């Protein structure tokens, strides 16, 4: 079974990347694939609590992530330094995640066959 890492490094709403990253997790999750999701750099903003893009007539993104476990996606890694630089802690995020240092993220990626960047 292929191990796929979805690496989110971009902020949501300004571009489509994070929304499509989410859709690809669901899309690939239904196939026989071992999917891990890593949030690095501006990608940590994707998990921020309280997103409400109603005034932009867009769909909220963050709240969908806790539901991904229904698609058997259960490995969520957040880069500790990226969080800290942005003045954030794990409490600011929509779900419980594994907070890893750079070496931890590196090791998680090294265990994957494919990295899809969003």
């Amino acid at each position, binding site marked *: 079974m292929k191990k796929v890492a979805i690496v989110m490094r971009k*902020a949501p*709403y300004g571009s489509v990347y994070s929304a499509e990253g989410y859709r690809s997790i669901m899309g690939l999750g239904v196939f026989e694939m071992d999917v891990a999701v890593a949030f690095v*750099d501006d990608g940590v903003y994707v998990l921020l609590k309280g997103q*409400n*893009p109603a*005034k*932009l007539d867009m769909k909220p993104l963050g709240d969908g992530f806790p539901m991904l476990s229904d698609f058997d996606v259960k490995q969520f890694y957040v880069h500790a330094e990226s969080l800290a630089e942005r003045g*954030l802690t794990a409490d600011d995020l929509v779900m419980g995640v594994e907070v890893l240092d750079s070496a931890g993220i590196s090791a998680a990626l090294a265990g994957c066959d494919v990295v899809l960047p969003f």
Partner: protein
Amino acid sequence: MLFMINKTPTQYGNLASALRIAAKGQPILLYEDGVYAAMSGAQSEALLQAALADHPVYALEADLEARGLTRLVPGVQVIGYDGFVELVEQHNVAPWI
């Protein structure tokens, strides 16, 4: 001249670049992903404090709300699209995109 910033200060040089070019007193508008610069407690707050020392700084409410940003650096003025238009009434525009 109104400087418009639509990128995060953490992965993009747009805000830092605008601050080099903008003359004292010229306003800065944070919109789209640029609003992340308004968050307090981030390392980029130093950049925003430098901005506030010399410029009025505005952040677009719809973009803040979309991204769930509530803890803002004091001094940043939150405005709606109507406020955005009001700034454009008063200034020529330099989109620093």
